[in-house]
């Protein structure tokens, strides 16, 4: 597929090749950003199936709108913004899914566990705690502390003012601390 001839090639150069008609070169960008973007999607949506949906949609939309990427050196950031929007749309749908009849019981089980007493591993506790945050503050927390974006970058991508973002991040930190404490106490009892 040509992965060999994309290693070491800059994003901008790959973008140029795709726009010139070499569709396969896009696979190089997908491979390059899959895990990086995947981490955010998994943390934001809480399960891999939805994360993969979001990733797939983001990559396809990225391809379709590639001509509108005005700064191909910043392709990653541009694509990330697309992914964030996809996660918002999918996340909103998923929050209601539990009210509908779902056929895949394993997915339901994975998606619907709420109580820390059912989890013993630290990782699962942390994932649970992040899941409890409302989407808006979860997003801000992940962007700031996990993806390590600056507030300027976050404003550019999300459109929210820095003051609003800071408030969301602060609330997220408070909430998470409370939840983690609660989980620890529950684990001890």
């Amino acid at each position: 597929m040509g992965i060999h001839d994309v290693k070491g090639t800059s994003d901008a150069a790959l973008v140029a090749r795709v726009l010139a008609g070499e569709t396969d070169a896009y696979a190089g960008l997908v491979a390059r950003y899959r895990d990086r973007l995947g981490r955010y999607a998994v943390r934001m949506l809480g399960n891999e199936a939805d994360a993969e949906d979001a990733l797939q949609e983001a990559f396809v939309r990225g391809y379709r709108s590639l001509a509108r990427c005005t700064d191909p050196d910043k392709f990653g950031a541009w694509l990330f913004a697309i992914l964030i929007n996809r996660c918002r749309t999918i996340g909103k749908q998923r929050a209601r899914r539990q009210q509908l009849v779902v056929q895949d019981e394993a997915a339901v089980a994975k998606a619907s566990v709420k109580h820390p007493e059912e989890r013993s591993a630290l990782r699962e506790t942390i994932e649970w705690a992040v899941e409890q945050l409302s989407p808006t503050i979860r997003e801000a927390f992940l962007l700031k502390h996990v993806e390590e974006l600056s507030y300027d970058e976050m404003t550019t991508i999300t459109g929210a003012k820095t003051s609003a973002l800071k408030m969301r991040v602060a609330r997220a930190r408070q909430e998470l601390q409370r939840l983690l404490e609660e989980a620890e106490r529950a684990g001890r009892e």
Partner: protein
Amino acid sequence: MPEESDRLEQAIRVLKEPAQIDSGLDRRVMAEIESVPLPGAWPHRFWMTLDWLKRGRPVRVSPLGGLAFTVGIAILVLFGREWMTPQEPGAPLATTAQGSVVQFVIVAPAASGVSLVGDFNDWSSAATPMRRVGGNGVWEVTVPLDAGRYRYAFLVDGSTWLRDPSAPPTLDDEFGRPGSVVTIGEL
């Protein structure tokens, strides 16, 4: 409390661990892209002029945006008459059972004649002449419109096309001339 922030820092460390997304995703993405080819979907200019790679970051300017607001304020200040309140297309003056009545306004002080040309009058340059109001180059006309989305522009002195600064522009000027859009929703 140090204990609390340790807990949080630990959580952040765990969350930062990289995800491992199945590389089957790559195949699905490429399959989806390839199943829907877009011949000629990208504007030709992007294919031909890849020198944007070498240029600095392009600057997005909205030259008429600021002007629109200024013009709007100027009209309010100068005239203050009821009908001169900048009515933006899409905010009809009146809504009737047949449709809506929309006022179009443009400031063109140097013009001798301005006409409104668009989807609603078969792009005829003669069908909807605008009338000059006051002495400051303000032209207006009101038009009844049914529900729909209409592309239009102002034609000044039969030769210069102007878009309406107070309305959204057309997405691409397919024919090399500026244009605007007004949308009337169903009642």
